[in-house]
């Protein structure tokens, strides 16, 4: 497990970029935490780190944003608007759990049970000051020491 204290939105995005080097195609990343805690900003950093060009915008309304990259697709998914497991099933996120995709799932609290067992779990919380965010990263692989 790894803990990061981010002091700004820029640092949160940089943490996402740094985290991206730990990913392989096929990985699923669950992002959890309350409104405004840095999930989308972190995900934007991950996308940039994975080779996505241009702006990475919130998928809250669109539900799934796909970005083509060298190895396939980065799927940026948001469960904020999803109510209940029937809508989860209708959305069909498991179609993105494959070796050509990296899957980033915001508001993942409700779908943790249906994710592949070896997924990354990143939780976000508001910190002591208004610009601080506490980020905690757990995953199936740790960087070699």
């Amino acid at each position: 497990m790894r803990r990061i204290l981010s002091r700004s939105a820029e640092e949160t995005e940089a943490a996402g970029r740094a985290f991206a080097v730990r990913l392989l195609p096929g990985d699923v990343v669950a992002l959890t935490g309350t409104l405004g805690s840095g999930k989308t900003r972190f995900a934007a950093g991950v996308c940039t780190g994975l080779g996505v060009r241009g702006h990475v915008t919130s998928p809250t309304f669109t539900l799934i944003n796909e970005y083509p990259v060298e190895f396939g697709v980065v799927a940026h998914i948001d469960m904020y608007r999803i109510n209940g497991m029937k809508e989860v099933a209708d959305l069909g996120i498991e179609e993105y759990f494959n070796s050509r995709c990296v899957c980033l799932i915001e508001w993942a609290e409700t779908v943790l049970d249906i994710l592949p067992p070896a997924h990354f779990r990143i939780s976000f919380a508001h910190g002591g000051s208004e610009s601080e965010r506490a980020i905690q990263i757990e995953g199936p692989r740790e960087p070699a020491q």
Partner: protein
Amino acid sequence: MSVPRSEMIVLGIETSCDETSASVLADGKAVSNVISSQLIHSAYGGVVPELASRAHQRLIIPVVEEALASGGIKKEEIDGIAATQGPGLVGALLVGLSFGKALAFGLGIPFTAVNHMEGHLYSVFLEEDVPAYPFLALVVSGGHTMLVHVEAPFRHTVLGETRDDAAGEAFDKVAKMLGLGYPGGPAIDRLGAGGNPGAVRFPRSFLEEGTLDFSFSGIKTSVLYYLRREGLGESGAARTLLDGKRMADICASFQAAIVEVLVARTIRAALRQGVTDIALVGGVSANSSLRRTLRDEAGKHGCRVFTPRNEYCMDNGAMIAYVGWMRLARGLTSAYGTPAVAYLELTGIAS
């Protein structure tokens, strides 16, 4: 209503996100526009908004049949079919796209795939009073916030867009914090109308000098921290603890911050491009403060603002039929193998 056969009749189908919609267009005029969330016939079960593609599968046939029936058109009279190709949810897009292709194949008529964002751009032409080329379009919705310079049909350039949240998303998420439900953008508009927009000074995010991009993520967080400082938490406590006047003031103040940025950017873009006509399109263009402020500011600079009626601002089949008609009239058809594309960009057509 019967339509003379000399006109080109196009069926447009839209299934990129939440709405299942179909429309019949006769020579560029919508004669019907059926949108699932607005269907009052409970027989279709369409009044409760449903997410994702399974609802589209259930609604596509009744919605298309209703569009034909209410337009007084038999399917044999259709000259061409248009369906949204992207951007959007692949599973949702596939329903409308596949249905459109299959119906075109069955009827032996041309099919054309349409970019959803082009639908919004040209939706303004569904009305009588239309902008002159070149014009500037502000596309503002739950999923998109974009400034586009439209030089000529299918020749357009994106000048700026949101780097994080769409304006509509900021409205809906702040409404939820205030306990106004989700989506609550219209509630903020309604409550804010009676409030003082200067009561709380929320930050305006103008990013770096010279850019026409937007950022609406910061204001969402600043409202959250304002409510926390005021002891109103973030889980809708505001709804029960605030009196009507303060709620109205917060709604008006938040709305003013969003509208000020949207309008300032739009006017700057119009002046920079030297255009006088501005199209305000997309779901958030129904916001009364945005409409009024943009009209007032545009007027000061000798610019005119064009906004289609609400049913053409939200996701709808008429705008897809319109772009389909523009394409078919120019001989631009699509092969049956045309795929749904989640990340389709707004590139226009190179000539």
